[in-house]
C-alpha cells in the first residue's frame, strides 16, 4: 500500500518499521473476514484493514489521534487472527503495538480510562498485588448491583468484579530462584516462565507443567529476577514498563543460559509465549538486542516442549472427549495449531474442534475488563460453539481463556492438566466439579504408572 511519510519521519526507527509493515499490506481485505470485531460490528473501521488504514493516517498526520479513531484501535483484541489470514505476511502485531504506544503518548484519555489502565498495569503483572486486589474485588462483588446500569465505567467495573474468581487458590509460595530436579537422569534443562496473573488464579498449571517436565527427565528452573513477560503493559501501550519487564527477564534467562545452560524457555500461557518469542524484535534497538534474540529463539510453548522432549501417557485412555479451544496466542500468535491436539490424542482423548475455532473468546489479556461488551459477545459465541461439540471438557492453553470461559456450565481447564493426569498426575479438580465419570481401570492405570516410574527410575 502506498504511504506518504517524509524522510524526516522515517528517521524514527519505530516509524520506519511501521512503514515497512504498511507497505506489505495490499489492501485485499481477506483479513476482515476472520477478525472477531469485524464479524460482530460489521464496520470496516473495526476490521484489521480498517485499523491499518486508521493507523497509517494517524502516523502520516503525526498529530494526536481523535477519540473516535482511538476507540476502533482500542477495540482490537490483538488476537492476531488477521495475521494468520493475511496472505501477504503483514505483521499487524508490530504495527498495532507501535500504534498503541503512539496513542498512549499523544492521546489524552478520559480520567477513568487512564485510571483503569494504570491500575491494570500496576496490578496484573505483580502476583502479590493482584491477589490482594482479587480479594478486595470478591468483597466488593455484593455491591455490583449498586453500579449505574449504563456507562463505560460501570460496565467495566462490573466486568472486573465478575471475572474475580469465587475461591482463590492458595498461593504458590513463591517460585523465583527455585529448581525442580528431574525424576531419574537429567535429559534436559529448561527455564519456566512462572508468569504473573496465572500464578494467582491457578497455580496448579505451573505445578502440572513442572510435574510433566520433571517426570520426563527435565530439570526446571525459575531464575531469580524473571517475572511478568511484559505483554500486559505492552498491550496497554506502556512502553517504558514493558521494556523494564522484558529487560529483567532477558537478564535472568541469559544468566541461566550462561550458567548451567538451557534447552528451552517453557511458557504455559499462550499470550506470554507469543510475547517472549518476539523479544528479539522488541529489543532490537536496545543494547540487549543480541541476548534478547537468543532468549526469544529458546522460547517454546509447553506443548512444543512436551512433544520435543517426548511426552508419553502412562494411564489407559480415559474415554473422555475434549473440545480443544485454540487460544489466540497459540494459534495466531505462535502458529501452534496441531501440537496441543496431537498431545491430547496421544494421551488418549477424543479431540473435538468447535466451529469458528479461529475466533477469539474475548479474553485477550486485560481486554475483557476494558471492552466488556465485545468480550461478552465473543464469550457467548465461543461458548455456543463449544457446547455444540458435546464434549466432556474444554481444554485450552491459556489462563486468560480459562478465566473468560469458566463458570458457565462447561468445565474448562489447561491442556497440561489433562496431559499430566494421563502421565500419572492427579485427576484435575475441574473434572470432579463437572462430574466427568472416573474411567474404568483407574487402579490398574496407577499400577502401570508406578511401573513406568519404576522403570524410569531404574
Amino acid at each position, binding site marked *: *500500500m*502506498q*504511504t*506518504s511519510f517524509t524522510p524526516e519521519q522515517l528517521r524514527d526507527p519505530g516509524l520506519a518499521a511501521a512503514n515497512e509493515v504498511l*507497505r*506489505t*499490506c*495490499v*489492501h*485485499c*481485505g*481477506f*483479513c*476482515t*473476514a*476472520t477478525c472477531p470485531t*469485524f*464479524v460482530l*460490528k*460489521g*464496520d*470496516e*473501521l473495526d476490521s484489521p*484493514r*480498517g485499523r491499518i*488504514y*486508521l493507523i497509517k*493516517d494517524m502516523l502520516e498526520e503525526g498529530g494526536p*489521534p*481523535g477519540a*473516535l*479513531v482511538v476507540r*476502533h484501535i482500542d477495540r482490537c483484541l490483538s488476537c492476531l487472527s488477521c495475521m494468520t*489470514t*493475511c*496472505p*501477504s*505476511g503483514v505483521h499487524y502485531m508490530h504495527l498495532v503495538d507501535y500504534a498503541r504506544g503512539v496513542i498512549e503518548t499523544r492521546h489524552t484519555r478520559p480520567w477513568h480510562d487512564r485510571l483503569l489502565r494504570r491500575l491494570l498495569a500496576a496490578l496484573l503483572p505483580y502476583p502479590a498485588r493482584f491477589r490482594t486486589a482479587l480479594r478486595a474485588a470478591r468483597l466488593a462483588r455484593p455491591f455490583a448491583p449498586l453500579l449505574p446500569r449504563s456507562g463505560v465505567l460501570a460496565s467495566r467495573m462490573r466486568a472486573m468484579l465478575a471475572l474475580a474468581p469465587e475461591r482463590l487458590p492458595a498461593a504458590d509460595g513463591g517460585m523465583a530462584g527455585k529448581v525442580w530436579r528431574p525424576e531419574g537422569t537429567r535429559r534436559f534443562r529448561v527455564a519456566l516462565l512462572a508468569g504473573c496473573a496465572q500464578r494467582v488464579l491457578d497455580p496448579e498449571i505451573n505445578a502440572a507443567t513442572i510435574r510433566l517436565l520433571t517426570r520426563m527427565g527435565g530439570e526446571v528452573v525459575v531464575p531469580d529476577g524473571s517475572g511478568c513477560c511484559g505483554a500486559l503493559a505492552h498491550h496497554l501501550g506502556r512502553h517504558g514498563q514493558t521494556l523494564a519487564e522484558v529487560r529483567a527477564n532477558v537478564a535472568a534467562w541469559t544468566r541461566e543460559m550462561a550458567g548451567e545452560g538451557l534447552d528451552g524457555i517453557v511458557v504455559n500461557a499462550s499470550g506470554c509465549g507469543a510475547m517472549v518469542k518476539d523479544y528479539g524484535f522488541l529489543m532490537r534497538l536496545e543494547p540487549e538486542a543480541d541476548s534478547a534474540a537468543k532468549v526469544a529463539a529458546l522460547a517454546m510453548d509447553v506443548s512444543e516442549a512436551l512433544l520435543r522432549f517426548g511426552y508419553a501417557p502412562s494411564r489407559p485412555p480415559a474415554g473422555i472427549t475434549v473440545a480443544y479451544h485454540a487460544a489466540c496466542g497459540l494459534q495466531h500468535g505462535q502458529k501452534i495449531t496441531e501440537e496441543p491436539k496431537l498431545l491430547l490424542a496421544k494421551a488418549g482423548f477424543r479431540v473435538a474442534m468447535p*466451529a469458528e475455532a479461529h475466533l477469539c473468546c474475548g479474553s485477550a489479556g486485560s481486554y475483557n475488563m476494558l471492552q466488556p461488551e465485545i468480550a461478552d459477545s465473543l464469550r457467548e459465541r465461543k461458548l455456543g460453539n463449544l457446547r455444540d461439540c458435546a464434549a466432556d471438557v474444554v481444554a485450552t492453553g491459556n489462563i486468560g481463556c480459562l478465566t473468560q470461559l469458566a463458570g458457565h456450565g462447561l468445565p474448562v481447564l489447561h491442556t497440561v492438566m489433562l496431559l499430566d493426569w494421563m502421565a500419572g498426575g492427579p485427576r484435575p479438580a475441574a473434572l470432579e466439579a463437572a462430574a466427568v465419570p472416573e474411567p474404568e481401570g483407574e487402579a490398574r492405570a496407577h499400577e502401570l504408572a508406578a511401573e513406568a516410574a519404576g522403570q524410569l527410575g531404574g
Partner: protein
Amino acid sequence: MDVEPPLHEDVLARRGAIVAGLCRLLPEDAVISDRARLRPYETDGMASERQVPLAVALPSTTGEVVAVMRFLHREGVPVVPRGAGTSLSGGALPRADAVVLGMMRMHRILEVDYADRFARVQAGVTNLAITEAVQKGGFFYAPDPSSQLACMIGGNVAMNAGGAHCLRYGVTTNNLLGLTVVTAEGDVVEIGGRHVDAAGYDWLGLLTGSEGQLAVVTEVTVRILHAAEGARAMLVAFKANEVAGACVAAIIAAGIIPVALEFMDRPAIAACEAFAHAGYPLDAEALLIVEVEGSAAEQDALLARISGICARFEPVSLRVSASAEESAAIWKGRKGAFGAVGRISPDYLCMDGTIPTGRLAEVLARIGEMSGRYGLKVANIFHAGDGNLHPLILFDANDADSQRRAEEFGAEILRLCVEVGGCLTGEHGVGVEKRPLMGVQFNPTELAQQRRIKEAFDPGWLLNPSKVFPAADAAA
C-alpha cells in the same frame, strides 16, 4: 481521454443536512461522517484509486436500505454500495458527493433448504459462509472466487464473480435463483424466487454483473449443490507455455471437463510456492493444477486418463496428490496467489482479461515482451479451462513513474485480450479500472444501448457513479 463527470456541487453544499437525515434513519453507530473515520472507506481492493466519501451508512435490514435509498433519491445523492470492499477493479470506489452504503451488517443466513437445494442469505454474508452454512448437509455453494473467505455475496452478484471451479459449475449468474433488490427510487423488488427460470425478461441475469449500476442487492437466493464424494488435484509442470496450452486443449478435446484447470507461469509459481510450500516445481516454465472429482476410484480413473494425455506433452514433472491434505496444500498456493505476490513486491496490479484458450501461448509471449518494454515484472495466473487470464503486474506505489507504467502496461494487456477475441474482464468487473477501455471492446452504438438500459433503471445516474460507463458517455 477519460474525464471525470463533475461532482454534484449542491450535494456537497448540503452535506450537513444529508448526514443529519441519515442519522434520523439509522442507529447512531451506523452513520460515519467524520473525516478521519471516512478515510478507511476511501478505497477497496484496488487501493491505487482513492476518494473520501460524503458519509458511510451501515444498514442492517432491507427496510433500512429502503429508507436510506428513498431519502438519498429524494435528495439527489449518489450511492456507492459496498460489500467487503475486495473489488479489484475499484467497484466500491466512493466519490466525494456519494454516500457509501456498506452491506457488512447484513450477514444473516435466512433460510437453508436441502430438499429444494437453495439457501437464502443477506447480501453481506461472505461467499465462504454460505458453504459453511450448508456443509453440514454435505452441500456447497459453487462459485469460489479467490477472495471467497472475505468477499460478500452481494458483491459477488454485482460482479458476477467466478472462481477456479466455474468451468464445471458456472459463475454466479448460473447459480442464482432469486434476488431482493432495492431500486434507485427505493422500491423493494423480488426477482425470481426458489424456483428456476422466471417467465419474462431475465432480470436476474441482467442485474447479475451489473456492478451496482441498476439496483442494490439486499438478499440473495442461491442454488446449493451436493459436494462430490471427493476431489483430488494433480500438478503437471511443462517446459514451455505452448506445451501447457496444447495439453489443456487435448484434455478438453478428449471429453474431460476437470472441475478446475489452473495455469501458472514461472514467476507465479515462485511467489505461490514461497507462501504455501505446496511443493510446486521451481524449475518449470508453466504449471497446471488439474482437479477432478468423484469417488476414489473415479478420481483414479480420471487422473489416469489425464496423466496419459499429459504424458504426450513431455511434462517436466507430474505429481498426483495422494490425499485431500495434499490437494488442499496445492490449492492454498493458488488461492493465496495475489497475497503471495504482495510478499515479493510492495504493490501489484491484478489484471483480469479473458482470451480464447487456444491463444494462451501467443498472449503470454506478447505479455513477456511488454514486461521488458515497461521494465516491470509480471506473474501470470490463468483459469485455463475458461480462458480467464490474471497477469499480476508488480510495481511500487510510492514511485509515481512505476505506477504510471504499470497502468499503461495493464491497459495494453487488456487491449491485447480484446484483439485476440477475448474481453476486458472475466470476473473482476469493469469498475473504475477498465472504464476508459470500454471503447476498445464496444462501439458507440453498443455503449449507447447499454447506457439506455442503465437509464431505464437509474434515470438520475445516482447508483454507483463513475464506474463501468466511460466518463464521456456517462456525462452525455
